[in-house]
């Protein structure tokens, strides 16, 4: 199925080094030394354009320098603007590919599951075992007992969970999750308000804004695409004021913000609601816009003024909750309402919390009542930016997975809308999978799960409540894992299959959420050891299962060419392949909802009312106080002021880390030395506990305990600690995790709309016991 390797590559022979003239004796020696070192070596180096496409958001250009079948170093994009330059993660890729820890052969567990003892077996034996177990589970329990634990570790088209899902579908179906740990709250809110997830304006439009608010958004570390941070820098340099609202003084605050407003985690909705109160109290709203394009403003106003519950949502009310001084809330509200056009970009992080839908809804509604939607320089806060080379799925239109066929919509889903999250009730919310494995149908879940097929996912590490995850995986009858490394999840496998890396296969990576480019990943080297691609494994396993895989009998190139032909923005497949990147020229900034605003008669919003829904009837019909029809501030059992806070007084954040894309790169030495994994704790909280910078501390709650160094810093507000997600779970005999996996501590509840509660986890911190 592989087409000729050579035909895929662009061979660039490097020019011979020309030595500069020497001036005198010692100088000649100095120059000769360096000249000689690189002349002969460069002749047989081939540069292969490929990329780095994990789930950080960026899909970036890497040019692999290959010599004798081995990558010796990388360069990145030095071509036309905007350049898609890889960050430190991409630049460290050699230490992933050539890590001594790469899984080399198929492995079979010996001893207890999770003990981490394996023996080498052949591919044939490994796939025979997996096929036999799949058949046994299917015959004994039905296909719904097969759980596909597919993750986002691979963002290509041909590999990761896609070919495995296709195989399992052909085999009669499987159970999967709904929701995303990253954005489910934001997505739900975007759908409820606008009826779509295509919101916001393209980055280049920020030059037209008079004010930019970066709310819980850290694109300096979370690479949305290389263009985002670069554009923010240029917009700042142009003199546009930027305000950041965040419990941490992030690298984004450091680099771009003129003003930092630290806010207590989980209370963002209260501040946004109070800002709306200021705006309507001072009559600063865009009344004409509200009347023409929205529904339900009056009902929101009733809530804001306290007519509904007797509590006016004033800045003083919000100060109590958020810890943001009332005058700061008033100041920002006035500035936002009077600096039109202004861009309020509400990140996903604050929506990765209990009632996260409310924060996102409140932000979206604030952009609506100020009329900052559908105009240049404005920004319809919501799920993502307007341009997308990745098509959004039709979502609600059923399923071809036999296990899901005919299942009614989930109770609290926005099933009346097109797009968004699939509302099929046969799916299990990702944060409840561990609970579902342990309790099954008897516990109210749609299916009894008996085996997990894990691909492109460090599942137990990256989903909330890791200890419950371990318990759940131990309760399964069979676990198969595709992996590159012996991750905490792979350790729980019965059969572990070595997967290759981007460098060892061909693929296309469309960018994350709507940057106008594609990365074409040319295969740079042959697969190392006995590793295979996810697609190869799926095709071989399909044969053993006796099913016809839809991606069989075509070459990788054929499939990629076919997929490309269906995307209107890929006009020249061959050129994309040659260059390793396709940058799509956009004539002018993309402004979401421009048509809806300019010609509302002919372009209704894709909501049931055809308007922006400040009041959402679809939500009202759900009749659930935790997902009200207008955005509200709602407390929960792990709020800063909940009774549990007496025992666990610190609020935990589990942000992204600059040296990892989720759990990927954790084991890369170049990354570990950049900024070692540590818990951020404010000086005041540290002092109270006798903790000094660098001290080993325990962060714990009833769910578990991790032991990592403390980073004592002023960059996080008192009362809040941060353990970035993605460090690998490494428990000792007592269950204390020395790896520092944030999910050992995280809350595995979810809100009705799907918002995950990971950033709503209360903890305590203390010095680790001395040895």
């Amino acid at each position, binding site marked *: 199925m592989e087409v000729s390797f050579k035909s895929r590559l662009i061979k660039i022979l490097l020019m011979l080094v*020309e030595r500069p003239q020497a001036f005198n004796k010692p100088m000649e020696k100095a120059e000769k030394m360096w000249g000689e070192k690189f002349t002969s070596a460069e002749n047989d180096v081939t540069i292969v354009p490929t990329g780095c496409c994990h789930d950080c958001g960026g899909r970036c250009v890497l040019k692999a320098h290959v010599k004798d079948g081995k990558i010796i170093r990388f360069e990145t994009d030095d071509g036309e603007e905007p350049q898609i330059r890889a960050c430190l993660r991409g630049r460290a890729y050699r230490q992933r590919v050539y890590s001594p820890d790469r899984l080399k052969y198929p492995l079979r567990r010996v001893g207890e599951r999770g003990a981490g003892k394996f023996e080498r077996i052949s591919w044939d034996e490994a796939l025979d075992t997996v096929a036999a177990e799949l058949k046994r589970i299917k015959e004994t329990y039905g296909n719904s007992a097969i759980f596909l634990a597919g993750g986002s570790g691979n963002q290509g088209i041909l590999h990761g969970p896609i070919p495995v899902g296709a195989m399992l579908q052909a085999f009669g179906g499987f159970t999967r999750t709904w929701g995303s740990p990253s954005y489910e709250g934001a997505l739900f809110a975007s759908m409820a308000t606008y009826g779509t997830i295509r919101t916001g304006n393209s980055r280049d439009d920020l030059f037209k804004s008079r004010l930019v608010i970066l709310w819980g958004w850290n694109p300096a570390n979370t690479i949305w695409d290389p263009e985002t941070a670069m554009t923010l820098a240029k917009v700042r340099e142009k003199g546009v004021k930027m305000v950041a609202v965040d419990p941490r003084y992030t690298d984004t605050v450091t680099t771009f913000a003129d003003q930092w407003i630290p806010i207590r985690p989980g209370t963002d909705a209260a501040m946004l609601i109070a800002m709306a109160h200021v705006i309507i109290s001072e009559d600063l709203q865009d009344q004409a816009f509200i009347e023409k394009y929205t529904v339900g403003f009056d009902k929101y106003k009733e809530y804001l003024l306290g007519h509904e519950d007797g509590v006016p949502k004033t800045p003083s009310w919000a100060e109590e909750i958020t810890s943001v001084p009332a005058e700061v809330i008033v100041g920002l509200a006035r500035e936002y309402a009077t600096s039109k056009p202004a861009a309020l970009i509400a990140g996903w992080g604050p929506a990765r919390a209990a009632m996260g839908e409310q924060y996102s809804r409140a932000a979206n509604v604030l952009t609506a009542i100020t009329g900052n939607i559908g105009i240049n320089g404005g920004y319809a806060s919501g799920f993502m930016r307007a341009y997308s080379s990745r098509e959004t799925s039709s979502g609600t239109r059923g399923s071809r997975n036999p296990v899901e066929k005919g299942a009614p919509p989930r109770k609290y889903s926005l099933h009346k809308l097109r797009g968004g999250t699939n509302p099929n009730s046969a799916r299990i919310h990702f944060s409840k999978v561990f609970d579902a494995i342990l309790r099954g149908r008897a516990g109210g879940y749609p299916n009894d799960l008996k085996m997990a097929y894990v691909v492109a996912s460090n599942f137990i590490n990256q989903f909330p409540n890791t200890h419950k995850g371990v318990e759940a995986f131990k309760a399964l009858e069979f676990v198969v894992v595709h992996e590159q490394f012996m991750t905490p999840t792979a350790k729980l496998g019965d059969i572990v299959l070595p997967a290759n890396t981007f460098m060892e296969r061909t693929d296309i990576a469309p960018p994350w959420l709507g940057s106008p480019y594609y990365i074409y990943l040319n295969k740079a080297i042959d697969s190392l050891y006995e590793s295979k691609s996810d697609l190869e494994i799926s095709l071989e396993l399909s044969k053993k299962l006796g099913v016809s895989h839809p991606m069989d009998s075509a070459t990788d190139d054929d499939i990629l060419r076919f997929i490309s032909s269906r995307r209107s923005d890929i006009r020249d497949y061959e050129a994309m392949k040659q260059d390793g990147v396709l940058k799509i020229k956009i004539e002018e900034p993309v402004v979401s909802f421009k048509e809806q605003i300019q010609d509302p008669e002919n372009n209704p919003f894709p909501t049931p009312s055809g308007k922006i829904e400040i009041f959402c009837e679809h939500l009202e019909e759900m009749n659930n106080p935790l997902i009200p029809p207008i955005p509200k501030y709602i407390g929960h059992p792990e709020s800063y002021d909940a009774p549990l806070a007496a025992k666990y007084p610190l609020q935990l954040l589990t942000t992204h880390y600059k040296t990892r894309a989720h759990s990927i790169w954790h084991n890369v030495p170049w990354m570990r030395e950049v900024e070692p994994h540590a818990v951020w704790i404010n000086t005041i909280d540290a002092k109270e506990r006798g903790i000094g910078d660098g001290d080993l501390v325990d962060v714990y709650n009833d769910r578990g305990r991790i032991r990592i160094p403390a980073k004592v810093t002023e960059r996080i507000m008192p009362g809040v600690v941060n353990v970035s997600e993605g460090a690998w779970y490494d428990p000792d005999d007592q269950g204390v995790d020395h790896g520092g996996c944030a999910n050992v501590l995280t809350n595995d509840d979810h809100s009705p709309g799907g918002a995950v509660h990971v950033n709503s986890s209360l903890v305590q911190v203390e010095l680790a016991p001395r040895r």
Partner: protein
Amino acid sequence: MSQMGFYFDQTRCTGCYTCAVACKDWHDLPAGSVNWMRVRAIEKGTFPNIFVAYLILPCCHCADPPCVRVCPADAILKRESDGIVVVDQEKCLGQDECGGPCLKACPWDAPQFDQVDNAKMQKCNFCLQRLEKGQQTICVEACPMHALDAGPLQDLRAKYGEVSEAEGYAYSERFKPSMTFNPKLWHKGD
């Protein structure tokens, strides 16, 4: 001769360390050994009035480099053609042998010694082999924020201005480091 140097826009640096990692990849330097390019995080003030900046530290390729002066073996050389300071590792006596006076003399700790017996000095060589092919240094090519530039110092100064100090970086009149900056300033009380 035209002295080569670096420009660093401290206001654009997000502290991502891409320059440092790209340097390690290009020059094949393992983790835990030497850092030809270093990034320093600077944090000042008390919550909520705080200031954070990052500073890059390659070799500053001084006009009058102290490391060259103090080397007992004349192993450190300043190229006359472009002012780049290079090390002849064959001549270098090694840190155990000579005690590393070059490192002690450098205000910015540019000379690097690996954790091995009698390590020979190594440091940023301005990507000489790339320079000779007309390419930029790997750190400049890597920076996602385009916060770095390298080239003849007088050209950099003409293009970006002549600012020799930045947050965390003090100029030395004696050594004349070949650096120019767009420094980040702390506007207290803003």
